[in-house]
């Protein structure tokens, strides 16, 4: 069983890594640093691009039976080559830059939206010790920090297009992403409190019980936050395809638009991977190999997102904002307090089975209780 990156490298044929071995004859190229770095960089880029294609295919095939259709089935078996055809089409399209656009910002924005996705994937462990830096001791902090760059990229796209609709869309997107990052971060802090580590690998290793059961409140809050962060239904009102076309990337075409598409689905991958890692015990699982378990959980989480897209209507902007600030943020703080009390009570060993029913009951009580307090500004309270 391969367990560490070093072991993978030592099992490879020597010609693969020997040219990189200690290239500058200095102390910092230890453990075949360059071979490890090169292997996983290329691996991550390939993985993300492949899984983006897989996700696009999966979404289209999975949402179609819910709408009583078949979905793409002409290109290749089960329409598997449809994303390839789409990619070729979008690469051949004309690249249009508006005359009065801020050319540099307009050019950099699509890159800036996709790079954070790849960066975030560096710390995701797909197996014990397998990843670019899976055991980074500030892993989850790194993910949250790098994930915030996407907000800037969105605003760059809106500003650089020199179009009033794209700047409006961008400002709304930024407002939403900033609002929802806070409850998400609090949900992550609850996980970190229980595990006592910021490393994603350490978090997975600590999960003898999937945290979706142990911390249901944090799981629900993080999932809703992830939906908002991805700007997917029911929070896709800022780029609502059926109503206002695109929002911030309205002026993009060709390969630059494809980069936004990649960034969107790459974000879906990274959020699915984070939910898998933080709440669904990552690579752990019986019988099947760990990487397969990771992929199954990844696609299951994305399937849930697609299912929600097929079902729920989108919210209004005021509902969106008040939901973040009046419902999710207080709940996440209360949840954090409860988890902190549990951790103190159990003296740091809160991963026990009999906390599961207690936490589920607390979660249900909090959700229903706070829902009766929740009301939109000036609007009538929902009858209970």
């Amino acid at each position, binding site marked *: 069983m391969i367990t560490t990156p070093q072991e993978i490298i030592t099992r490879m044929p020597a010609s693969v890594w020997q040219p990189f071995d200690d290239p500058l004859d200095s102390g910092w190229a230890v453990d075949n640093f360059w071979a490890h770095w090169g292997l996983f960089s290329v691996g991550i880029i390939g993985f993300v691009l492949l899984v983006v294609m897989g996700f696009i295919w999966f979404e289209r095939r999975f949402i179609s039976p819910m*709408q009583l259709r*078949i979905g793409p089935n002409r290109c290749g078996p089960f329409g598997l080559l449809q994303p390839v055809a789409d990619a070729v089409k979008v690469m051949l399209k004309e690249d249009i830059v508006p005359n009065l656009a801020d050319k540099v910002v307009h050019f950099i924005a699509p890159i800036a939206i996709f790079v954070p996705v790849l960066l975030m994937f560096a710390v995701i462990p797909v197996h014990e010790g397998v990843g670019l830096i899976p055991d980074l001791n500030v892993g989850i902090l790194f993910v949250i920090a790098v994930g915030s760059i996407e907000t800037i990229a969105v605003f760059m796209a809106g500003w650089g297009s020199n179009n009033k609709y794209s700047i409006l869309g961008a400002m709304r997107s930024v407002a939403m992403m900033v609002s929802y990052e806070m409850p998400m971060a609090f949900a992550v802090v609850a996980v970190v409190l229980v595990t006592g580590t910021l490393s994603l690998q350490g978090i997975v290793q600590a999960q003898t019980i999937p945290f979706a059961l142990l911390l249901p409140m944090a799981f629900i809050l993080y999932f809703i936050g992830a939906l908002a962060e991805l700007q997917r239904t029911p929070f896709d009102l800022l780029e609502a395809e059926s109503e206002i076309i695109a929002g911030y990337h309205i002026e993009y075409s060709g390969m630059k638009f494809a980069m936004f598409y990649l960034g969107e689905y790459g974000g879906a991958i990274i959020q699915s991977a984070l939910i898998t890692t933080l709440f669904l015990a990552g690579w752990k699982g019986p019988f099947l190999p760990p990487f397969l378990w990771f992929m199954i959980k990844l696609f299951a989480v994305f399937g849930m997102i697609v*299912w929600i897209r097929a079902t729920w209507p989108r919210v209004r902007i005021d509902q969106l904002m008040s939901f973040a600030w009046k419902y999710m943020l207080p709940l996440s703080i209360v949840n954090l307090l409860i988890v902190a009390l549990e951790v103190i009570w159990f003296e740091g060993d809160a991963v026990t089975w009999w906390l599961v029913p207690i936490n589920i009951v607390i979660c249900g009580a909090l959700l229903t209780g706070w*829902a009766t307090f929740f009301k939109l500004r000036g609007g009538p309270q929902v009858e209970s």
Partner: protein
Amino acid sequence: MSLKPVGIGLMQGLFVVFKHATRKRITEQYPEERLTVSRRTRAQELVWDPGLCTGCATCVKACPQGNLKVTTSVGPNNNYIVEKFENDEGRCIFCGLCVEACPYEALFFGRRYERSQYSRGELIADKDEMSGDDKERSAYFRPDLYDDLPEQTLLIYRKHKKII
């Protein structure tokens, strides 16, 4: 206390959608599954019977588009020999006036509907193409053919499992 403000309706919605996913597809799966068109269809082509046609060109006079081209010459028995009979299907509006005008019932509507071509030139149907063996004659304005044609299939005739 009711569960309405928590969003129990949204959860119910999820399960309604999931039930839909297990239901039979409503849309017709076209290349695998084809519907039989109406018996009196006015589909995308004309069928010409060279044995019945006398070359009188009544159809040409009836055509509002000026779309049919008929050229004739005098034959041995002082009859018309049709040398050219063309219909540009790209310009034809399929009004059916030529079929109705034909005094010898030599012109029919076809029943085929997959008539797209790669260029406009290929859409011009000449004498051989209009009288080919692969043509199926529609019963439009030709009630004699009506009983021999297969019944039309409509999606509403399908049996659906009732949902909700």
